[in-house]
């Protein structure tokens, strides 16, 4: 029973990383209408930058998280302006942006390889809250609890931002149609910049935390998050961050339990089949609203 509970918590923490990454990925997809293949690299780079902040500059972990998050956001901004803005102003649609995002994926992945000298690095265990806490008979990692809490805070925060604030209204409006939003006086470009930053920063946060939690800071970090984060977004419904959060957590827990009680070899098959079933049978996901396709 204790093993069961511990594993459930492990799955929850793991799934929280998927969800946190997925929220950023989903924001870009729902608001900017871009299937961004480069999104995973934001997480890799955030973790790499965070690592060097700790390792080279000797600054404490929270600073590393902050700098990593900012790096993820700024990178997303830069990619948006270089790769997507020129196409956006020509109304080239989603396809062109997909290709330029693939280009940036290749570039940033390869540069990340150079930045880490092709190694998989790890935050020194002493630099972040890596210890264990006893909750009754259960052992829980401090960082796991932090990750779980971070996801909850971010989900609530971003949900409120999008649904309840004026800026969020503008983000949804721009996501639907930039011209329609601009007719109300919304500076669509500014909103796009903010959205890109927010998306990059959220996924960057997932990257730094995942880098610490899995002792793996490398250019491969983002790709793993990307595949599972993508699944979380689809299962949860891409226009609702709450759906992404819950779907991510569920995927994490399912993954752990399938590996423990069924078979590791079938684990990913299980995840992706679930993904496919949702796509075909309930394409708007757990929480997605009935469809207005982006105009």
């Amino acid at each position: 029973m204790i093993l069961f509970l511990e594993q459930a918590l492990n799955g929850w923490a793991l799934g929280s990383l998927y969800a946190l990454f997925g929220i950023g990925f989903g924001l870009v997809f729902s608001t900017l209408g871009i299937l961004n293949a480069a999104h995973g690299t934001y997480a890799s780079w955030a973790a790499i930058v965070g690592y060097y902040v700790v390792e080279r500059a000797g600054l404490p972990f929270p600073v590393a998280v902050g700098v990593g998050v900012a790096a993820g956001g700024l990178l997303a901004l830069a990619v948006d302006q270089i790769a997507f803005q020129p196409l956006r102003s020509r109304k080239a649609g989603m396809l062109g942006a997909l290709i330029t995002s693939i280009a940036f994926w290749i570039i940033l992945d390869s540069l990340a390889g150079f930045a880490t000298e092709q190694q998989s690095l790890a935050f020194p265990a002493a630099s972040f809250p890596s210890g264990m806490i006893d909750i009754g008979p259960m052992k829980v990692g401090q960082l796991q609890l932090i990750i779980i809490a971070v996801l909850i805070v971010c989900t609530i925060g971003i949900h409120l931002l999008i649904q309840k604030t004026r800026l969020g209204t503008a983000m949804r409006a721009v996501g639907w149609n930039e011209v329609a939003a601009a007719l109300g006086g919304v500076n669509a470009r500014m909103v796009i910049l903010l959205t890109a930053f927010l998306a990059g920063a959220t996924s960057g946060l997932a990257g730094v935390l995942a880098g610490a939690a899995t002792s793996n800071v490398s250019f491969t970090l983002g790709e793993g998050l990307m595949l599972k984060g993508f699944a979380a977004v689809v299962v949860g419904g891409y226009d609702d961050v709450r759906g992404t959060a819950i779907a991510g957590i569920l995927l994490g827990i399912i993954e752990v339990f399938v590996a423990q009680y069924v078979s590791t070899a079938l684990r990913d098959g299980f995840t992706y089949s679930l993904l496919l079933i949702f796509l075909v049978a309930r394409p708007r996901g757990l929480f997605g609203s009935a469809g207005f396709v982006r105009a």
Partner: protein
Amino acid sequence: MLNVSRLSADYGAIRAVRGVDLKVEAGSLSVLLGANGAGKSTTLRSIAGLHRPVQGSIRLDDREISKLPLHKVVRAGLAFVPEGRMVVAPLTVEENLELSRFSGRADEPDLVDRVYQLFPRLAERRRQKAGLMSGGEQQMLAIGRALMTKPQMLVLDEPSMGLAPAIVDLVFEAIVALHKQGQSILLVEQNAAIALSICDYGWVMKRGQIVVEGRPDELKQNPEVLEAYLS
């Protein structure tokens, strides 16, 4: 108020507008008439900042707005209601209206209520998603959104397009009411009969150029206008 001079614009590979001059007086309701493909919409979209003209100047009061991006034109005081409405479908009626606060031109909290007074239907549907409303309701919303920016100049492109006659009446009643309140309005309209019955001044476009202009009673007398649009 709005002063357009020597405006030229392309539509695709075609020069759709050739050297158009328009002058809209403050407080007037002016109308731009013309057959399909005469260049009215391109003219209007150029004025509103939705379309980049090839040359010419567009001045709102004394400010040149022809080079401004769409949202800055709105912020400068020219609000546009495009053909096809373009309301934000996934947002509610109220969110669509509140969006216009981004124009920075109006922060009176009761501005929304004034729009609801003008269009009581919108008040009933304030929590409804805009995309789920009828064409007429969306048209009202699009006008409401424009009014929420407290524009000096309100520009409407074919507001009667695709609407049932009863709704067309409602929309035009609202336009007349706004005009009475002193709102400056520029209108493109297919339905020349209605347009000429409410406007102060009009132009007729043909193949990208203004061919006739004048007060509605003059235009109604003009044989060319009579033949082409009022038969």
